[in-house]
């Protein structure tokens, strides 16, 4: 799902850089405005480091076509959408800058797929479904978040000349494959979130927010 250099037309890459910069800037503004409790700082660092490590574990599925855990939903559910986005920005940027995983020109697009679409889609799915069942909510958040992130990758490549502008091929290929593989992302997400809910439920964004802002407003 990490687009390398050479896959995207420069105008597409540039548009995604601008879109990602706007959303990331908005996230930073929201975080500064609302503030973060001091005790959540180490959690943010550990979530990002954990997602980096988990992304190294490529699923060895026989037949070859496979994927690895991305973690946008885990970041969103633990840290909330804004700080979760920043955690994924750290992971995806370090992957590109230190490890050459994902191109430099494609970084804006890769951030949009994995740090923005995945995180925000997963957050709102979890927020909506967790009122009924937090396990189902975490599973669906992980599954649909990654699938829509992959569809964004399909859109960006499908609008580029190297992919012969074949958006009608790239979107289904990305959507169907990652939709199927995304079930694993959903299962890993529910495993992680259920474990945290059971042992340290207080660190999850939604419960932390409810505790600090009982009426949903500012303290």
């Amino acid at each position, binding site marked *: *799902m990490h*687009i*390398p*250099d*050479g*896959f995207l037309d420069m105008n597409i890459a540039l548009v995604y850089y601008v879109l990602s910069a706007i959303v990331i800037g908005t996230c930073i503004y929201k*975080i*500064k405005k609302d*503030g*973060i*409790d001091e005790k*959540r*700082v*180490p959690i*943010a*660092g*550990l*979530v*990002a*480091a*954990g997602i*980096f*490590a988990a992304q*190294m*574990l*490529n699923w*060895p599925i*026989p037949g*070859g*076509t*496979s*994927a690895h855990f991305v973690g946008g939903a885990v970041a969103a559910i633990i840290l909330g959408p804004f700080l979760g986005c*920043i*955690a994924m920005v*750290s*992971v995806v940027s*370090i*992957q590109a*800058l*230190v*490890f*050459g*995983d994902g*191109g*430099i*020109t494609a970084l804006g697009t890769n951030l949009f797929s994995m740090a923005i679409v995945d995180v925000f889609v997963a957050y709102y799915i979890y927020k909506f479904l967790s009122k009924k069942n937090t396990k189902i909510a975490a599973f669906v958040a992980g599954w649909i978040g990654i699938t829509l992130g*992959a569809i964004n*990758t399909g859109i960006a*490549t499908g609008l*580029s000349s*190297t*992919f012969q502008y*074949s958006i009608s*091929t790239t979107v289904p*290929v*990305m959507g169907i*494959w990652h939709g199927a*593989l995304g079930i694993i992302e959903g299962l890993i997400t529910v495993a992680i979130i259920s474990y945290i809910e059971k042992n340290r439920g207080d660190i999850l964004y939604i419960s932390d927010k409810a505790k*600090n802002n009982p009426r949903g407003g500012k*303290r």
Partner: protein
Amino acid sequence: MNFKNFVIEHKQAFLVILVAIILSPLFALAADAVGYSEPLEKSAEHLGAEESPIYSGILPDYSVPGIDSPIGTFLAGLVGSIVTLIIMLGVTMAIKGRRN
């Protein structure tokens, strides 16, 4: 923030991350064995799109230049996790604002 207390207080999280890093060379070998390839590569192959790398990174493809692959993968994972931890802690401190 005291580093020792940080580790002790979050030892479970550190342990989970360490286990993932230790397992990463095994997963890399297994992925090689099954011919790991992502849907994006399938799509590129099908449409004839080719990469044109302009930058390979400091530790290219999660390896350490000159070190055998499983140990290189482990070291790359260790370095990457530590760098990510430090960067995210720093960024969060810098943007956290003041909660009141």
